[in-house]
């Protein structure tokens, strides 16, 4: 039959494309991990032997470990800030009709569409004007800003799917509004809250496109440290540091997959 041939062709090409895509998507991460385990002094292929020496070199390097902790601290604080602001915004957008509601929603989601290089330059110049340049606060503000759209969107979806009758039941039992939020709304929202927080954290932890403008000499985050290092030279210690970043990111994704299911964060 004629149709069979086309069906088979499409099936086969689909299979090939999917295989190719999954391989390509994973290739950089797999190669970095493979390269980081070399025993050699350079990153030639195939590696000269297996060893953990570059990982111990990376862990002993104050330059990289300082940047790693700076990244973790920054991402944690920025996540808390953006979750707080994002929950209030999403709650207001979902529960109240107020003048400028649509405009506010567009504005809250807009850091997503402003090119990072434009936002980075704008903030760099603005912080220089108000005396916040190269400061930790500036970096924190920038990161909070770029996380906000993810948080507002994820929590907005969560709130829209929430069963309001449970809140009304609590109100009928004379629970005060804050008690309702604390005892009913927040626990029901837990999956959304977790996925928003985790995605915000990972976004901030890996961000280089904004940090490179705001934190060159002040607080240096790990991605920026890798960027400045890779511009001049690259050796296996960089692969080991990148391996640590991959491990952290993968662990976080696996944890969220266990907790709430990975399809929630997309």
């Amino acid at each position: 039959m004629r149709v069979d041939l086309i069906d088979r062709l499409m099936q086969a090409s689909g299979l090939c494309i999917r295989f190719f895509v999954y391989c390509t998507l994973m290739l950089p991460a797999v190669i970095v991990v493979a390269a980081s385990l070399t025993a050699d002094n350079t990153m030639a292929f195939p590696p000269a032997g297996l060893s953990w020496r570059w990982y111990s070199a990376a862990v002993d390097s104050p330059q990289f470990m300082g940047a790693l902790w700076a990244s973790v601290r920054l991402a944690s604080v920025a996540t808390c800030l953006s979750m707080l602001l994002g929950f209030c915004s999403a709650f207001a957008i979902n529960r109240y009709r107020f003048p400028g509601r649509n405009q506010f929603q567009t504005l809250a989601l807009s850091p997503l569409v402003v090119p990072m290089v434009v936002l980075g330059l704008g903030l760099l110049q603005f912080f220089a004007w108000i005396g916040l340049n190269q400061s930790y606060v500036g970096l924190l503000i920038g990161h909070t800003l770029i996380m906000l759209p993810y948080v507002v969107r994820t929590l907005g979806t969560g709130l829209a799917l929430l069963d309001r009758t449970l809140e009304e039941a609590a109100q009928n039992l004379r629970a005060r509004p804050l008690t309702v939020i604390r005892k009913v709304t927040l626990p029901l929202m837990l999956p959304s809250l977790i996925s928003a927080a985790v995605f915000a954290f990972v976004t901030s932890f890996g961000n280089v496109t904004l940090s490179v403008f705001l934190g060159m000499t002040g607080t240096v985050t790990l991605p920026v440290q890798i960027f400045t290092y890779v511009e001049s030279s690259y050796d296996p210690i960089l692969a080991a540091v990148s391996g640590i970043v991959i491990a952290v990111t993968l662990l976080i994704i696996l944890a969220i997959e266990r907790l709430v299911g990975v399809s929630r964060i997309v």
Partner: protein
Amino acid sequence: MNETTAPAAGPGAERICGIPKWLLLVAPAAALLAAFLVAPLVGLVRTSLYPGPTSFESTGWSLAQYRDFFSDWYFVDVLFQTFRIGVIVSVISLVLGFPVGYSLARLPPAQRRWRLIFVILPLTLSLVVVVFGWLVVLGRNGIVNAALTGLGIVESPQRLLFTEGAVILVLVQQFLPFMILSVMSVVSQIDPVLEQAAANLRANRFVTFRRVILPLAMPGILSGMTLVFILTISAFITPRLIGGNQIQMLGNIIYEQIVVLLRWPFGAAMSLVLLVITLITITAVNGYVARRFMTPRSREHAR
């Protein structure tokens, strides 16, 4: 978001100390966005209108920066090159991303899980780590060259980095997940019954794809392509590290003008050109999708 969930009572129904509750909730985020998103962009507009080469002790207003940009063939070429790469990357992302997104939407959850992790990891992994991985893959002593020379296909290591192909490859790998997820979310809303019905009417897969799936998936395809396009034209880390001095895109030229050459007014003007192109693209596509694919009823629903 669905407006019907909002209470029927209008604004100002609930107040704390005379201030409407919604205002208290919105104010912190609105203040942050106004002060650190809107104000910096307005600042960039101001700087781009300085007449001189630096913004230091500059005064006056002029369109000189924009004139310089559009009258210099070098920069106009870069603009076209950036556009071209943006289109190429989004088309390749569509061709590669559609089958993956479609199959993800149709897979049972258990099989979907690991594949989804494969898609999300590159999305959340730091961009520098991804680019560094590609440097190792494509470098002079990288695995591709090692494989090529090892198999005797080429005599000596080839220059793979600093080519347009390499930049496009790396950009596609970075932004493909956005396309995949966009297609996945729209296809998972298409009822499989429609495909079975088409198959019962003796349509083969291709006809089903062209006549049933493609039209229904079009909003997702367009939004995915738009996202990939605007991310590509504003990329600067990838062209800088993978393209070196050979491949210039708008993003890395802006970075260079400001961070290396400190030509703030000119860099500000270029970044505003980039911002305007981005906003026009998004508005045009959103408007088209709204006009073409939403019935009046669904438009009301989506609002």
